[in-house]
């Protein structure tokens, strides 16, 4: 999985922004979403990302893992990532 051809990512103090330049849509990302995109850019396997974030953020509740899974699904649904 990688960012789609027309999607640009930039890290910001608050997290990051995804910019889909074909439709000229901008998505503002919180730190968890930013961490997901960073993993995608690094080439991590999609199935491993939620678990890695859970570990990194030391999230006992599993909330971040669920958040990451939902975010990846949303990236797919919006066409912001491709295989």
């Amino acid at each position, binding site marked *: 999985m990688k960012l789609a051809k027309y999607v640009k990512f930039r890290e910001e103090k608050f997290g990051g*922004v995804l910019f889909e330049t*074909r439709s000229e849509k901008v998505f503002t990302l919180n730190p968890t979403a930013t961490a997901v995109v960073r993993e995608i850019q690094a080439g991590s396997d999609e199935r491993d990302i939620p678990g890695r974030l859970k570990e990194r953020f030391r999230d006992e509740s599993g909330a971040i893992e669920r958040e990451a899974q939902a975010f990846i699904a949303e990236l797919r649904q919006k066409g912001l990532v491709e295989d």
Partner: protein
Amino acid sequence: MSIPPTTPAATGSGDLSAPLYMAWQVTNECNLACLHCIEESGPGKAFRDELDDGQVFAVLEQAMDLEVPYLSFSGGEPMVHRRFFDMVAYVCGRNGQLKIETNGHYLDPENCARLKDLGVKAVQVSLDGATRETFNRMRVRGDFDKAVQGVRNLRAAGVPIEINYSPTSFNAHEIGTAVDLAADLGADSFYTGRTMYTGNAVKTWHRMAPTEAQYETYFQILHRKTEEYRGRMRVHFHEMGLLEELRYRLHHPAALLIVLPNGLVKLINALPFVCGDLRRQTLAEIWGRFQRAWQDPRVGKFVDDLATDPRKTATLHQWVYL
């Protein structure tokens, strides 16, 4: 987690480390002399102090270093700039997304193939008319057939196409046909809005300005066309009047910079205010000033004055340095 989309124009600039979009008018020189041109471009109209090659590439380098994700080159006619293809190659080579805004007269098969090879995001062509008669009346020295052929050449080369349309009293009735033509030519997007009273339009307004009744019909047709082409071609249009737009911008400055051919940076095209000079300041410094510049009381006053004197937009080229 939900990530509602917005646009560069609707994205607040306050928290961002750099602009999301840099709209660069690379030269004021143009092969045409269009009735409505907001930049008063035309043959022999290049600014005497346009950025030299070293300055141009220094600005591009800064933009890429700051990870400005999206740039556009316009003019004037950007394709007459002596280093046009080198500039395109630099931005695309550093993975920037680049849109070219052109009148389409230099889009021969060879140039289209080069644009494709270099990887531009899209080329936007101005087609202000669905017929030779209206287009050529609007685009003085222009040739409808040449512009249409240019779009066909883009299509053949596989370059994504956008069409831009400026309404006037004599072409507004063709909007439906123009949207259909854009779709037939293979455009991905169609853009239009209200024509602004500035630049050449100040001199030609009496024979060019659409009436409010024309605008009403114009936007009704565009609403219908938006639905008709949904999923095939995006139809974007701004019904909002300039005053309304500027009042919104005062509180929500867009995350974009307008760069003039001489390196001056404007707050927005529809205001005369300059917040930086790329010949003397870095892009990062200017971005740092941008948000504060919008708060300057002169900006708010200018917008307030527009409510009683809409023709103040005639002075947009009398730059005010903040």
